[in-house]
């Protein structure tokens, strides 16, 4: 009809570093006005950082932001709000003790006295509710609302401020499928009203369902811009995971042994009451690597933690060596004694103590081992000797046991953890993200170690968001989505597209 509208948002050459980590590298993005634009990528791909820059939470080190064709400096959320940007964060920015209407007016109260502002907001909420079918009690306390309704409050907050651009960061992560469908209906309604929506997600189904265009991020870079209608889940999955030069590892076939670890019917909820594991069962045999493929946040972490005794499942049975583990036995220390070792997903937060010397970190979990001292005492000389030996065997650099753990690079920290957990000849080894943040040389080393362990008869459960890694190492691959096991493939029979679909929750019967 008229000349085409300028893009609602244009980002040019956005870069942002946090210390040594480049979270965004020269990212450009153009979002058409009045469209729903998806941004996909794995955890840590830089999506959230990019949106935080757009919302003024961080300032980019370099790059330009244009809103509706105009260059803007966005240095604080206040700037972003003034530019008509609203954001629904993954972790809601709500004050749970306040009412809905109080949350909505926060920062846009319209006067020193609250009364008038609250009355106006109540009227406006009613209007918005009717316009978009967002029924909500303005005087309900936010903490009492369901997660879905809380998200509605977040959206209303943005709309109340007159946002023309709405960014939603992983909005369905906490929603039930029915709630997610309602949300998508709302997003379409917003588009009809001429609003622009940016949807950040790692769920391909959502992208296909609701977006007009999609951009894919990988390791801080924008790797693809696609029209949704012209793409497919497999193509997206491939773009997300990337085709990294694979460090092929020799994996001679091996007969698997007897079942060592069995889990049946594991169910688990997080602190918010969201189901994280739904009826998960699996069996690990001696001398095999079972890989869990899944986009981060689909229950793999919880599965590892339940098996390692760090969280107690609501339901389910775990057998180790054929014996059912009682609640009292599902304790990390007891499990270690029985040969179940664990390389945690987040070594910084739980696998090591950053403030300790490397030698001390190298005995974490084994501080009761009589090898390290007599009776209640620990002997530093023995602890250091032990570390020196382990560091030599695992090529930890620098091989200095007295150095503070925090001073080691990610790869070397990981080697410290691996050395600690592997050297004791585990029966079962649980491994989470073994090569996250690890340089290429160390990756190869770690992969070879894991395979050697498998060949020595250890049962290994591998959780990794790197699909390639799972495919390269595993004998069997189990895909998880939404806390459920969506399929299992033998390694020889698995291909990336097929697994990508399973990871996206597209199972055979649903497709």
């Amino acid at each position, binding site marked *: 009809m008229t000349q085409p509208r300028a893009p609602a948002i244009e980002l040019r050459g956005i870069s942002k570093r946090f210390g040594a980590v480049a979270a965004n590298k020269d990212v450009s993005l153009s979002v058409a006005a009045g469209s729903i634009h998806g941004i996909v990528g794995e955890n840590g791909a830089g999506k959230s950082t990019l949106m935080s820059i757009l919302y003024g939470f961080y300032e980019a080190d370099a790059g330009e932001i244009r809103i509706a064709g105009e260059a803007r400096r966005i240095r604080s959320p206040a700037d972003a709000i003034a530019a008509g940007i609203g954001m629904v964060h993954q972790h809601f920015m709500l004050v749970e003790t306040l009412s809905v209407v109080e949350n909505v007016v926060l920062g846009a109260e319209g006067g020193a006295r609250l009364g008038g502002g609250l009355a106006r907001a109540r009227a406006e909420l009613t209007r918005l509710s009717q316009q978009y079918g967002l029924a909500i009690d303005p005087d309900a306390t936010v903490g009492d609302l369901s997660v879905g309704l809380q998200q509605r409050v977040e959206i209303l907050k943005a709309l109340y401020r007159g946002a023309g651009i709405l960014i939603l960061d992983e909005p369905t992560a906490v929603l039930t499928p029915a709630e997610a469908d309602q949300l998508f209906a709302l997003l379409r309604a917003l588009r009809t009203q001429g609003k622009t929506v940016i949807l950040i997600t790692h769920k391909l189904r959502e992208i296909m369902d609701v977006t007009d265009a999609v951009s894919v991020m990988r390791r801080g870079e924008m790797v693809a811009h696609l029209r949704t209608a012209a793409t497919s889940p497999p193509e997206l999955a491939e773009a997300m995971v990337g085709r990294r030069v694979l460090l092929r590892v020799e994996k001679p076939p091996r007969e698997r042994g007897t079942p060592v670890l069995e889990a049946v019917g594991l169910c688990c909820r997080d602190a918010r009451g969201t189901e994280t594991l739904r009826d998960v069962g699996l069996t690990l045999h001696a001398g095999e690597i079972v890989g869990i493929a899944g986009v981060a946040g689909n229950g793999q972490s919880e599965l590892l933690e339940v098996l390692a005794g760090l969280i107690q499942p609501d339901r389910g049975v775990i057998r180790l060596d054929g014996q059912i583990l009682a609640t009292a036995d599902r304790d*990390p220390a007891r499990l270690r004694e029985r040969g179940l070792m664990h390389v945690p997903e987040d070594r910084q937060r739980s696998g090591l103590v*950053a403030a300790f010397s490397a030698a001390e970190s190298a005995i974490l979990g084994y501080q009761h081992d009589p090898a390290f001292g007599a009776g209640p005492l*620990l*002997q*530093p000389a023995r602890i250091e000797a032990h570390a020196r030996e382990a560091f030599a065997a695992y090529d930890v650099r620098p091989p200095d046991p007295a150095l503070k753990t925090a001073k080691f690079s990610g790869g070397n920290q990981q080697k410290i953890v691996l050395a600690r957990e592997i050297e004791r000849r585990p029966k079962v080894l649980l491994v989470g993200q073994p090569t996250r943040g690890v340089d290429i040389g160390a990756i190869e080393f770690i992969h070879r170690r894991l395979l050697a362990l498998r060949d020595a008869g250890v049962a290994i459960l591998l959780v990794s968001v790197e699909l390639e890694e799972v495919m390269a190492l595993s004998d069997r691959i189990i895909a998880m989505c939404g806390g459920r096991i969506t399929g299992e493939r033998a390694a020889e029979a698995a291909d990336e597209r097929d697994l990508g679909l399973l990871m996206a929750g597209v199972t055979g019967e649903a497709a």
Partner: protein
Amino acid sequence: MSAAPIELPRWADVALVPLVSVAAALLVAGLVVIGIGENPLEATALMLRGALGSAEGIGFTLYYATNFIFTGLAVAVAFHAGLFNIGGEGQATAAGIAMAFACLGLSWAPGFIAVPLAILAAAAGGALWAFIPGWLQAKRGSHVVITTIMLNFVAATLIVYLLREVIGKPGSMQPETPDFPAQAVLTPMHQLLAPFGLRLPPTPLNSALLLALLSLFAVWLLIWRTRLGYAIRTVGANPRAAAYAGISPAAVTMVAMAISGALAGGLAVNEALGVQHRLVLDFTAGYGFVGIAVALMGRGHPVGVGLAALLFGVLYQGGAELSFDKPAITRDMVVVIGGVLILFAGALDGLFRRLVAGVLRSGRSGA
């Protein structure tokens, strides 16, 4: 403790930053001295002479330092477990009460039985008074900071009641117990050392100093050389890693608090068993709070705690001498210095680290 840790070389971390904060705190104290019309340099000289210029002065200095070693260690041990025990006063009071009961009930016992039992009673009393908040935090989720404060006041009222109604000296208007049995008290240092040919002037310094030095060593051993110490440090530094390692943060919290309280009980040993030979009201006299400054300055390490305790011993004794010569400068100056030190070495640690880091950097680039 600060949100964004500033990386410093180790020597700067353990020595330079505390020294800079001490210097800054003394500077503030100097300003106060100027503010009340006295000469800070003269005051410093008087103070140092009073604290270190004579055998008697040194005796008093070490006697005060003994108190600070105990209360500083108490705070330090809790710190290592990530806990902030500001209940040293109350725990020392509870220790004193338990010890008084033990001493008064042990008049039949020879010294070699009565003294150790009295010390154990003090440790047990302090441990119990600290275990309660530890237990409440571990099992009921109530924060140790608030509960230890509240229990300080409970102990303070309890001792008033007990000294008046239960273990008070009959017929005395003073809130105090009768004298402890003569064999059940600690030996003054000048008597202890006399057989070795050392002739010392009589001071309150007594064998509790040896116990304090032993405690310094024991805490060092506990924290850095035992499995329990390893568990305590893990819980303090990274509770998630502790859970991963199969260490129970709840158990460590309770144990660390009990140890902390037992150490605070050393204050009662030095004061009541070592000097007063009876339990008097308010014998804790704020030593428990100064212990926080001692622990912060000493960076939680027994060597640091020992040195910081010595510094405060000098300030206390020097301050007492100073107030004879300069009645305008009372010993409360030490409380001010303690407060400023806690502020600088504790709450404003980030600021001082930034300052030191800035100076180091400009020194390096300038060279």
